Structures are given as structure tokens and as C-alpha cells.
């Protein structure tokens, strides 16, 4: 057995074991399973959120964008920073409502705030539809990374099967606590991997960042300013995209819920101030993509730039280490995506929609069963219909971002009404889908989801104001 293979397999198995162990001493109920009993301090929350945020896209996609698109990839540096800033202001309020009302999920928030189980079911449905393709993306990334890093010794399917079944095992036993603890391994490995490669390759091939950029500017003069190597990702696109993704980021159901795991509103706030430091690894990933463009130009698939450059530069055991880091980087987000897809279906579709009298114990049993069901379904899709959900992925961000007006106005404006939120959400979602699927994204140079979100916010406010004035007219004799 070669060393690379050993490192990859050992990492996957040890990570899963840590995940299972994390929940060993905790008596499992819905509260502990989904939000860790609301006991996480700053460090665990940081690890959990970083674990959810830094996915296989961090490795492959961001460097791939730097390689094939150039400057537009900078949007990733920006939107995360904006998202943490937004979270500083809204997540503590989300946490307080969650604590007071015992909420576990994002649809719980909508059900409570707008006194509508129907709205909860709608939010849960959009949430699950956005989560599932994202989960498939993690699995595909896991398979790809391990196959390339083990130089074919572990096939993509075997990697997905092993990695994902073990992931679901620790989700089943430990819930969110498992995710947080596996994140420790993931973060250490990913930061080491990205640090070594990101600082290493520009120095090895060019003798430093500055010289690498100099070479890049000479060879591809337009690559490092917007719109880079693209035709339609100019400054307006970047501005509208970072606003959309910055506001939408914490609207992902699994990221939203991680706020509930915190010990206090204070924890969340302090966490928000240190989160932007996590952008540094992304910066290093971009350096790898830029270096790759000069050293190995002409790759058919830019997403392979990171792995391909590592393969050409470092010994095979180190490639194995990258593969292992990549595998855990897929497992951690996959775990939390499965967890919340299952909880949303059990608690907010089944219980809220069809069986309001079902107790929390029953919801937990069903959630855990759904973890297994989603696992089987996701594996089936990954093996036999790998492209089935690709189109949904295109509107994932646009879709979840449409929750923003309902959440923020719900927290800070007494006047917002259920009717306004429902209309805004439906119109925003449909508009985003129409623009994206008719290939009008970017639309007039702007991100289509941003346009949908703007319309959504206006509809929400207008319908709420109309409803209020009508109520006033009705209540006065």
C-alpha cells in the first residue's frame, strides 16, 4: 500500500471516529443533536462555522476561478468579509429569539415569527432543494480529490462511498457536535495544506508573490483587473454579487442554525469579529491558481489547477496529504448539510406540515432515519446520475438569499407581515429561477439573484405596508 493512500484512508477513518466519539457522553435529544445544547463557546462556534463555510470549493473552485477567470475570483475574498459583518448585526438577535423560543432550524424561525406553519414548510422546501445539490457537489469534490491525490489507487466511487457512509455515521450518533469536532482535524489539515502550497509554489517557480504577479501581468495583462478573462463579470457584476452572497450567506439553513449552537449572543458577536481572519487561506488558494496559470497553462478544466500543480511540484505522499485534507474538507460540510436536510424534512415538513402533535422524540427518530435515507439517495445520484442536480446548484445561492428580507425585517421591524414575506419570497425565487434558467445571468451586467432579492425586498415592504393600512382602515369604525 502506498503512503498517499494510507494517509488518505487513515484521515477519513480517524475523522469519522472522532466524530462518533464527540457525541458519546451526550444524551441525545433534538436539542443536543441539532444545536449542540446551545453550549458552544467562541472556539467551537468558530470551528463549526469555518467547517461549514470552507468546502471543497475552497480548494478546487476558488483556485479554478483564479486560473480560468482571473480577477472575478476576488469576489470570494470580499463576500465572506461582508457576510461576517452582517452576521455581527443580525446573528445575536437570531440567537436571542432561538433561545427564548427553543428554535432549532431556520424554518422554525419563520414559523414562530410569522405564526404560519405553511410558511415554515415553504422555507424548508426551498432550503432542502438548495442543500441537496450542494451536498452532491461535496461528494463529487471528495471523489475527485481522492482519486487524483491517490493517483488512481482509490477510485472516485470508493472514496465517496467510504467517506460519506462514515460521515453519516457520525452525524447519526453525534449530530452537530460531531461536525464541530471533526472540523478541528479539517481546519488544521486544510490550513497546513493551503499554507504550504500557497506560499510554496509562487516561491518555487518565481521566487516570490511579487515576481509571480509581475510575470502574470506581463503575460496576461487583463487577468488581474475586472472583468479578468471573462466577458460579463465586470465591476457591476462583482458589486451586485458580493452584496447578494454577503447578505445571503447566513441564510443557508445550516449556517443560519449554527448561530443557535452558541452559548450566548455575546459568543456570536465576538466570533463575528474574528471570522474575517479565515479569509487568509482563501487568499493563498488564489495564489496557487494564479501560479498554475503560468506554470501549467491550457488545462481543460480550471478546477484541476490546484491538484495538478501540486502533483507536478511535490512528492506523492504530500499529494496524499492534500487528498486527505480535501476529503475531510468535503466530509465536514457534507455532514452538516445532511443533518439539516434531514431535520428540515422531519421537523418543518413532516411535523409542521402534517403532524403538529408529533413530539420531539419522534422528530429526532425520524431525522436520524432520514439521514440514512438521504445518504442512500445521495449515493445513488452520485453514482448513476451525477449531473441530475447540477441545474439546481446554479440557483442555490439565489434561492436561499431570498430569505434575507423575511429574517432581517422579522427581527427589526414590527410592521412586516406574513403576506408580504410570502409574496416577496415567492416572487424573488421565481424571478431568480427565470433569469438563471433562461441564461440571463448576469442580467444587464448585474447578478440575477441580486435583482431578484431587490424585487423581493420591495414587494415584502410594500405588501406589508398595504396590509397595515388596510388593517387600520378596517379597525377604525
Amino acid at each position, binding site marked *: 500500500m502506498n503512503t498517499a493512500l494510507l494517509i488518505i484512508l487513515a484521515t477519513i477513518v480517524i475523522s469519522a471516529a472522532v466524530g462518533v466519539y464527540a457525541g458519546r457522553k451526550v444524551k441525545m435529544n433534538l436539542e443536543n443533536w441539532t444545536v449542540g445544547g446551545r453550549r458552544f463557546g467562541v472556539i467551537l462556534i468558530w470551528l463549526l462555522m469555518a467547517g461549514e463555510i470552507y468546502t471543497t470549493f475552497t480548494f478546487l473552485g476558488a483556485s479554478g476561478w483564479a486560473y480560468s477567470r482571473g480577477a472575478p475570483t476576488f469576489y470570494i*475574498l470580499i463576500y465572506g*468579509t461582508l457576510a461576517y*459583518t452582517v452576521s*455581527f448585526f443580525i446573528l445575536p438577535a437570531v440567537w436571542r429569539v432561538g433561545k427564548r423560543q427553543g428554535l432549532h432550524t431556520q424554518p422554525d424561525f419563520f414559523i414562530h415569527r410569522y405564526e404560519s406553519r405553511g410558511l415554515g414548510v415553504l422555507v424548508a422546501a426551498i432550503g432542502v432543494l438548495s442543500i441537496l445539490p450542494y451536498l452532491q457537489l461535496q461528494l463529487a469534490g471528495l471523489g475527485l480529490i481522492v482519486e487524483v491525490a491517490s493517483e488512481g489507487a482509490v477510485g472516485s466511487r470508493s472514496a465517496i462511498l467510504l467517506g460519506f457512509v462514515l460521515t453519516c455515521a457520525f452525524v447519526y450518533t453525534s449530530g452537530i457536535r460531531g461536525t464541530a469536532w471533526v472540523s478541528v482535524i479539517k481546519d488544521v489539515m486544510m490550513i497546513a495544506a493551503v499554507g504550504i502550497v500557497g506560499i510554496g509554489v509562487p516561491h518555487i517557480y518565481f521566487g516570490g508573490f511579487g515576481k509571480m*504577479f509581475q510575470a502574470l501581468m506581463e503575460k496576461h495583462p487583463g487577468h488581474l483587473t475586472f472583468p479578468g478573462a471573462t466577458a460579463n463579470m465586470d*465591476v457591476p457584476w*462583482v458589486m451586485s454579487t458580493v452584496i447578494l452572497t454577503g447578505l445571503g450567506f447566513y441564510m443557508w439553513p445550516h449556517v443560519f442554525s449554527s448561530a443557535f449552537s452558541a452559548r450566548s449572543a455575546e459568543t456570536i*458577536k465576538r466570533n463575528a469579529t474574528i471570522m*474575517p481572519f479565515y479569509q487568509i487561506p482563501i487568499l493563498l488558494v488564489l495564489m496557487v491558481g494564479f501560479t498554475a496559470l503560468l506554470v501549467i497553462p491550457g488545462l481543460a478544466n480550471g478546477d484541476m489547477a490546484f491538484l495538478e500543480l501540486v502533483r507536478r511540484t511535490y512528492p506523492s505522499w504530500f499529494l496524499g496529504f492534500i487528498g486527505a485534507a480535501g476529503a475531510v474538507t468535503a466530509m465536514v460540510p457534507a455532514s452538516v448539510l445532511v443533518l439539516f436536510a434531514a431535520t428540515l424534512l422531519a421537523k418543518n415538513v413532516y411535523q409542521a406540515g402534517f403532524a403538529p402533535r408529533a413530539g420531539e422524540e419522534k422528530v429526532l427518530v425520524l431525522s436520524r432515519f432520514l439521514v440514512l435515507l438521504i445518504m442512500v439517495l445521495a449515493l445513488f445520484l452520485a453514482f448513476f446520475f451525477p449531473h441530475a442536480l447540477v441545474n439546481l446548484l446554479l440557483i442555490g445561492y439565489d434561492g436561499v438569499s431570498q430569505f434575507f428580507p423575511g429574517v432581517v425585517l422579522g427581527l427589526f421591524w414590527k410592521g412586516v407581515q406574513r403576506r408580504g414575506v410570502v409574496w416577496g419570497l415567492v416572487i424573488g425565487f421565481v424571478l431568480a429561477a427565470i433569469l438563471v434558467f433562461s441564461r440571463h445571468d448576469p442580467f444587464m451586467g448585474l447578478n440575477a439573484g441580486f435583482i431578484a432579492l431587490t424585487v423581493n425586498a420591495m414587494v415584502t415592504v410594500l405588501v406589508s405596508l398595504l396590509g397595515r393600512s388596510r388593517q387600520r382602515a378596517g379597525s377604525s369604525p
Partner: protein
Amino acid sequence: MSKGTKLALVFGSVPFLTLVFALPLVNRIKPIVLGLPFVLFWIILWVFLTPFVLMAAYRLEKKFTRRNGKGES
């Protein structure tokens, strides 16, 4: 809204001003700073400064909230 929260919001607008609305002005290669094209230097600068801006916002908000006697966990 307390004075502390208002101040915090002013601080919170900084990354939006610098990283979104200033982009049309900084989308250029030159001057090269620290070996980086200017637009990348600008983005990195504000990504690095944002945590400190938020920490300042946190301190200020806390200071004013405590003074008003409405401290909370």
C-alpha cells in the same frame, strides 16, 4: 436604537464602502503595492482591517450599552 448600536452600524458600513462601493475607483493594476496589483492590494487591505473595525464596533457598543445600564449576556 442605542447610541452604541448606531456607532457600531457606522463602523459596520466600512467594509461595504471600501469593498463594494469603492470598487469602480480601484479596479486598476497600478500603482503596484507590495508586489500586488492595486485592486488586489486594496481588497486584501480591507479584508485584513475589517476584523479590527468590527472589534472596535464591539467595544464601543458594549461601552455605551453598559453606561445605559442595559448590559446583557
